[in-house]
């Protein structure tokens, strides 16, 4: 583990200035690990690991260890939580802005940024969980005390309604709405529930420990009271896509490997082509950012489970055990799309069927207990990042919604579309600065 840490710390030497500032920040907020004397080096590493996404998403020969000691850098050219190796757990929250006061919103975004920088480095929010006046409620809610940051990433996005809602330009942002941030069309078969749709803002919290992800959303929601409230949220587990191609491809709740041909977090060329918004793509403030589509996809688990193995494999176009394309031996063998049924999921979704079109998937499974009929309320919380939703998710989903054999077993019930800006490069900058500044 020590060797691993040293290796990770290496590429970050050039970030000396930032690290110094960050270290100065740390004096204000106690490291949770320092409190319990957990791997003392962690503090220094947290400060030193300010670097680029490339550094964070370095190629590794093994699956990412579940409990990696190194924190994911918060500061960088791109937001973390996109190309970052996918963590084990998710807490995603969409927020409504409930004030019309632009200054209050900006102030909150600055406070959120500070809190996010602290939490992703394993530090407590504000004066901490016990460090304030005894007469005052603690700044930090405390359930993460003693826990490492667990590779926490916090990723912010801005929804269409932030720019204009019911015809009202609440914050003077209408002219800055990117063309790519479309109102998603109604896709065939969508059964969207009002309580799981939209949002002015979103935060994607990913961590290897669910308590850390939940703590992050809870504390941000608390800081935001009076300015935002949670419109809807989703917990997720068991990542269903991997951005580390050499790692074992995870299975979704249907038991199939999904996301075999995902964009790798280390593939700079593919990221530049398909994920990061480039200069000239549209609104300048989105350069270096990415568009996030979130979909809560309910699986009708019970009927799927009583479907024959052959049909299951036909539906996906892959074998269940190995995940090999039908007619092939190994998962990563080049698929023979024509060997699959016309309606097979892989055939329809594959880049070769879509003129090379692809998206970065980062979804999680979810199970929210059972519905009133005793059926598992479970499925896939689909998260996908892309350079232009109009050219990527929309045409892809239009096609899938019309033809995918999988539709017999799934229903899209929640949906959100968000513009995730570029990263916060150093302390003092804040989420949304390019948009509001």
């Amino acid at each position, binding site marked *: 583990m020590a060797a691993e840490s040293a290796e990770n710390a290496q590429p970050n030497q050039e970030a000396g200035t930032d690290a110094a500032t960050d270290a100065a920040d740390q004096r204000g907020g106690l490291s949770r690990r320092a409190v319990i004397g957990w791997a003392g080096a962690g503090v220094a590493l947290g400060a030193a690991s300010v670097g680029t996404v490339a550094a964070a998403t370095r190629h590794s020969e093994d699956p990412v260890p579940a409990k990696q000691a190194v924190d994911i850098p918060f500061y960088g050219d791109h937001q973390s939580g996109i190309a970052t190796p996918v963590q084990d757990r998710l807490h995603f929250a969409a927020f409504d802005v409930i004030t019309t006061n632009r200054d209050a919103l900006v102030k909150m975004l600055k406070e959120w940024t500070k809190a996010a920088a602290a939490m992703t480095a394993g530090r407590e929010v504000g004066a901490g*969980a016990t460090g304030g006046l005894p*007469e005052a409620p603690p700044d930090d809610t405390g359930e993460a005390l003693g826990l490492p940051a667990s590779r926490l990433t916090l990723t912010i996005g801005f929804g269409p309604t932030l720019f204009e809602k019911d015809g009202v330009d609440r914050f003077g942002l209408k002219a800055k709405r990117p063309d790519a941030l479309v109102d998603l069309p109604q896709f065939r078969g969508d059964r969207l529930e009002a309580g799981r749709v939209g949002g002015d803002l979103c935060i994607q919290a990913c961590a290897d420990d669910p308590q850390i992800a939940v703590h992050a959303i809870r504390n941000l929601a608390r800081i935001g009271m009076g300015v935002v409230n949670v419109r809807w949220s989703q917990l997720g587990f068991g990542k269903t896509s991997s951005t580390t191609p050499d790692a074992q491809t995870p299975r979704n709740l249907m038991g199939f490997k999904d996301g075999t041909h995902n964009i790798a977090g280390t593939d700079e060329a593919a990221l530049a082509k398909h994920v990061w918004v480039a200069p000239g793509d549209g609104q300048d403030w989105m350069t270096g950012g990415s568009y996030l589509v979130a979909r809560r996809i309910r699986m009708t688990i019970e009927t799927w489970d009583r479907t024959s193995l052959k049909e299951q494999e036909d539906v996906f176009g892959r074998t269940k055990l190995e995940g090999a394309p039908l007619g092939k031996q190994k998962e990563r063998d080049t698929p023979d799309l024509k060997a699959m049924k016309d309606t097979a999921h892989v055939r329809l979704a594959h880049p070769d069927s879509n003129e090379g079109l692809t998206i970065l998937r980062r979804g999680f499974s979810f199970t929210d207990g059972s519905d009133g009929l005793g059926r598992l309320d479970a499925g896939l919380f689909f998260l996908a990042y892309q350079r232009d939703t109009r050219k990527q998710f929309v045409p892809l989903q239009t096609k899938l919604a019309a033809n995918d054999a999988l539709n017999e077993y799934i229903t899209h019930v929640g949906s959100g579309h968000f513009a995730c800006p570029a990263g916060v490069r150093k302390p003092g900058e804040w989420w949304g600065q390019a948009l509001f500044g």
Partner: protein
Amino acid sequence: MSARRSTAVTLLSIAVAGAALAGCSSKKDSASADAVQVNASDSACELSKTTFPAGHVELAIANKGSKTTEVYVYAAGDKIVTERENIGPGTKATITAEIKAGSYEVACKPGMTGDGIRQKITVTGDGAAAKSDPRLEAAVTAYRTYAQEQADATIPAVQAFADAVKAGDLEKAKALFAPSRVGWERTEPVAESFGDIDPKTDTREDGLEAGQEWTGWHKLEKSIWADSKIDDGDKKLADQLVADLKDWQKRIPAAEITATGMANGAKELLDEVSKNKITGEEDRYSHTDLSDFAANVEGARKAYDLLKPVAAEKDADLAKTLDGEFDSIQALLAKYKQGDVYTSYDKVTEAERKTFSDAVNSLGEPLSKLAAAVVVQ
């Protein structure tokens, strides 16, 4: 109102410091050297000293017994000065409170039931007064006057309600129910600080302890609205409600009121709204929740307005935020008022309830910081 056990009387308690999560080190968990040690066991409640100076008092509790315990400091008449529940076997907890000179009792309650094992303590001198701010003393005096006015105005209102009940006049009783509660709801933390009145007057059916007889407003509410029938028992309860509230009215001059207690009381009023009114659980038969809601907010605002001169000096941003949020929530409530009557809560849609919930959170979160802004350091 909440269940009996949770009538946590922070109007009086100043602060309950950090929960002593076992194995989690924090400087707040360890009491200072001059703390009074309380060794609580299943059969004893031993204090390291039973006489100490008034002012900031710290109790360092160690539960050495096998049962979860709780520790109370009671003033005369079992008025709760401060308390700490749920202290597990083998764990420690610290309570801090501002205690004025006088005679008190410390009670350890192994198993968290009964009157507990009592120890008399004497608090000497006038330590608490030494560090006070005259503006805060004036605020406390003004708040006591306000609480008294509310109680004085409640008695005729509750008498009229009781008379309607005794006359068997359902419609009239329905009209007079919500107005009879306004003064009480505005100053509920004061009433709760007496410990014994609230369970008799304002307990909901689910808040009853085993063997406790259900009395007070909500029993009558159920008879009037759900049963549409007033029996002889209810008529007696109407008289008893008046008597219990007269007791409350009489005891207000003796209530322990401090500035931080007022601030915490204001926050608690919003907590009450958040927990019971937003959900419609408070007045589940009459659906007059918004009347109680408005009274809670009015009472919280009164306490805040009195503390504002000091709070604004220490934290101008906080005062500005609170002014804005109080205005917003009261403007929202005003939309639901026709004449003197608020919209029945069963007619308030889920979406509207969410708007109320947002407004309560928007006010409650900054209000939770008021106590720290009026602490005399």
